[in-house]
């Protein structure tokens, strides 16, 4: 280890100070804030379980919590399933150049406004929108797609599908080719190769991809708000409502802490599972 001098500190201190001021500070403050109380429209800094007991005893908080968990879980599962055949094709049936081009294309959506894309889905899915216009030409519909869980899922998938597809493709492209060849030589069908070789070998990548999809959907307010019609609301929408309309910041902080605890638990479990060595048989 080298001696700590001015030079080393110059590169180490700025980020520590910056993150303490603008990341760790706010994060700890939001935890502390969940124990504050609001009196006469003013927040009083104290340590009481007022907001916690109010929020935890309410049914709508728990139904929002369950709904958010189920929707984010469905988005992660759907994105993983939908992406898999495409990722498999890109990883094993395409040239390296085609794969690179596909990944480059999939990065583009991250640089278009997610808001504008959601708005676009709104006009596509609406009762008199683009999709129903197309169905009408075939003599079908109109179908109600907005303000339903389906609308929310479409929004989540717009957000997470490109990411999951990229991660799965990279994961599978990095699996040792010899393993797959060996499976072939031993007479495995494609399906058997996927089940016995690709899934176990790429386990970590698949789980991390699904975890990202879950985290992003769990925290997103745009899709459930605009495409799901806030009906029922999700946890992020509860945060917005209690902050923006109700001025009840401590209660919003309770929701935020509940979300953080959930995410940490799930992320921890997923990562433990992803990196666990398989028991040898």
């Amino acid at each position, binding site marked *: 280890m080298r001696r700590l001098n001015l030079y080393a500190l110059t590169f180490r201190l700025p980020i*520590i100070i910056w993150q303490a001021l603008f990341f760790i500070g706010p994060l700890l403050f939001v935890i502390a804030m969940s124990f504050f109380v609001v009196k006469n429209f003013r927040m009083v800094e104290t340590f009481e379980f007022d907001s916690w007991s109010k929020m935890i005893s309410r049914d709508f908080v728990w139904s929002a919590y369950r709904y958010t968990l189920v929707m984010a879980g469905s988005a992660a599962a759907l994105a993983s399933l939908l992406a898999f055949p495409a990722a498999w094709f890109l990883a094993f049936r395409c040239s390296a150049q085609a794969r690179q081009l*596909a990944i480059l294309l999939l990065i583009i959506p991250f640089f278009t406004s997610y808001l504008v894309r959601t708005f676009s889905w709104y006009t596509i899915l609406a009762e008199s929108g683009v999709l*129903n*216009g197309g169905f009408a030409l075939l003599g079908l519909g109109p179908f109600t797609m907005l303000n339903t869980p389906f609308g929310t899922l479409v929004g989540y998938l717009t957000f997470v599908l490109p990411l999951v597809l990229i991660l799965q493709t990279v994961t599978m492209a990095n699996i040792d080719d010899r393993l797959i060849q060996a499976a072939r030589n031993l007479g495995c069908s494609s399906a058997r190769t996927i089940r016995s070789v690709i899934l176990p070998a790429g386990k970590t990548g698949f789980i991390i991809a699904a975890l990202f999809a879950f985290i992003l959907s769990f*925290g997103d307010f745009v899709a459930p708000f605009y495409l799901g019609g806030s009906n029922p609301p999700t946890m992020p929408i509860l945060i917005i409502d209690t902050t923006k309309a109700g001025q009840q*910041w401590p209660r919003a902080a309770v929701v935020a802490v509940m979300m953080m605890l959930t995410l940490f638990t799930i992320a921890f479990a997923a990562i433990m599972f992803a990196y666990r060595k398989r028991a040898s048989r």
Partner: protein
Amino acid sequence: MTIFLRAYLVLIFGFVFLPIIVSMLFSFNSDRFPTLPMSGFTLEWYQTIFADPDFWRSAKNSLIVAGSTCIIATFLGFCTAYTDYRYSFRGKSLFLAIILLPPTIPLIIIALAMLAWFSRVGMSGQIVSIIAAHTVLTAPFAMAIIRLRLSQIDESLEAAAWNLGASEWRAMQEVILPFCKPAILSSLFLTAAVSFDEFTVAWFVSGLNKTLPVHVLEIVQGTIDPQVNAIGTLVFGISITLVVISQLLIFFRLQRAAS
């Protein structure tokens, strides 16, 4: 089988790109409510936004925020990447964790935390607050890009400079910085693009100084307004230009290194 999979791949890409394409197409569509078949071509929505002082004000704010964010985030990212590259010390994983953690925390939580924190320390509703929040969100990307570049450097280069009598500062200036230049430029463009699109934290923190995406958010909350498509198409043009420049910088650098 292959044909099915190819069709499926097209379908998936169709799903990903449909909203982008629809938004671009309908930004030129004369009907207020977008439906099929499309009606005539118009530039009305672009004229509307260009005539709107709110658009220009928020666009200016966005440029200020993205411009400042990219410089600070890249500086912080560089410092972190260099520290990680050169030093090992106790608590290094904690050090790296507090920098790399922000993207894993939902933006809505960061937004609430920033709002509360900034109003506590008397910094609420200012452009500086958005910049501070955005640097925290984008510094990890800067760090990742620059760290990747540093992993390609020959470690003996810096040591050689020291042996030739250069101070650490001089070696930084003459060896490390020039080597990292393409990654630094790339990081500047990428972090600017991310900041330019971010709306959750900006919405909570901005107060009256709204940025362009917050302006869009407010329009979307009102009615169906094809202005959004026009703004979206413009912003997409700007973001994608930034990203393409950033990618080209890396690409040409690699080409030159290869030849």
